[in-house]
């Protein structure tokens, strides 16, 4: 049987991003900022059962003034 997606990575379009820093405010667990205010997101997937982190990821996506963020769902067995 095919396993369902069970984890996600927050992806950022670096061209759209203008370094507003909202994502860092809204999802500090996932996003750090560098010295110029641009977000640093490590590529490690987060399990979807971490509901709090999923919620802040959604908030960050909605809160981005440049709409530069997206969630990419993946499967842990891949």
């Amino acid at each position, binding site marked *: 049987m095919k396993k369902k997606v069970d984890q996600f990575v927050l992806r950022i379009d670096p061209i759209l*991003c203008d370094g507003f820093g909202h994502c860092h405010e809204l999802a500090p667990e996932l996003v750090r900022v560098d010295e110029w205010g641009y977000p640093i997101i490590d590529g490690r997937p987060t399990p979807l059962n971490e509901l709090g982190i999923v919620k802040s990821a959604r908030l960050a996506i909605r809160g981005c003034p440049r709409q530069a963020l997206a969630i990419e769902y993946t499967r842990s067995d891949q």
Partner: protein
Amino acid sequence: MSTNVMRPTPAAIDAPTGVRRLLDRTDLPQTTLLPGHRQIYTRPGSVRRGRTHLIKLVEQAGLRGRGGAAFPTATKLRAVAEGGRRSVVVVNGTEGEPASRKDAMLLQVRPHLVLDGATHAAASVGASEIYVCIDRQNGACLQSVGRALQERRQYEPDAVAVTLLATPPRYVAGEESALVHWLNDQGSMPQYRPTRPHIQHVGRSAVLVVNAETNAHVGLINRFGAEWFREAGTEQSPGTTLVAVSGAVERPVVLEVPLGIPLRSLLHEADADSDPQAILLGGYGGAWLGAEHLDSLYCNEALRPLGASVGAGILVVVPRVACGLSETLRIVEWMANESARQCGPCAFGLPAIAKDLSSLLRGSHDSRAILARVKERCSVIEGRGACRHPDGVVRLVKSALQVFSDDVEAHVGGVPCVAAGSSRRWVAVPAMEPESDLVWE
């Protein structure tokens, strides 16, 4: 069939036996012209045995792209061929690397070989059109390919339509996504591709972007076969490749060598300084390699563990008298200026790194802290641009700090460096354009 269509006898040629394949028999007169070219290389037959035949052949030959990323060409061909939609082939001869002249040289000496290869590639993916892209500032190359195309229209009018295009003269304009974006009448700037490999489109046609030299290899593989191609080179990196050698050499040259040649023999063949301090491999976004690694082989599987790669076929020799740090600084400053300034980490990070290197070079009361900061900034920037431009600079700086650790220590310790004060430069870096003159078209 019109009478001026030239049909040479197919038996007239043998496969080149030596390591000079692309540049085989350059002593014959007029091989840049189509009749002369056709005496050496017959007209490619149509790919009637099924489109997949050539792709299989390229796969068996193990050809990897010669533009820098060394991506398997067959995978690219297959991705576009299986898309099942309209497609075009783009011959990438933009060659933004200032230290490289290999594609320019090939397009001037053997324009028809590249065009033959592009015709094969187009046939194998079912492309309806070929675009040959050459840097607008490279007039000689534009002229040679322009003449070649005219000849083809005259002698072989039934071939696939080829269009010659002059691209903007920017370093990142030759990047695949930037080139495709420009072909779509938009700015020649790299684009964000969340998933790779990513098939791009010009209008509604899928695009196959292939480096000029790679095209020439595709043409040869279709003529002489995969086994012949594998006679040169190593198991994982078969074939020959062009290398542009400059720096501490008799004169800058472009050589054709089999992949896997020892670096020392490569230097010897180029009449280079036989006891250099270091060499720059791959290009301005490449890596420095210390002299202790000169017994390594020139192929990716041997160079990758050392942090370097064949890259875009560039080798710059830096002698012992040079200051590696100042050579690196000039490259980094230029590369920072060539950034498209789309992504924050590249637009702000690269100038910051350049400034750090410059204060290291000049000497400062807190050099140690600056050195630590450069390393920190390098790791922060890496992998955060839409294209690989910042990653290349980071790789260069990281390798410089390692390879020239003695120079760096001297500068950090406040010891004046003799070479840094000298006006002799080894890596040819073009003059920087002021930011106001950087037009993105």
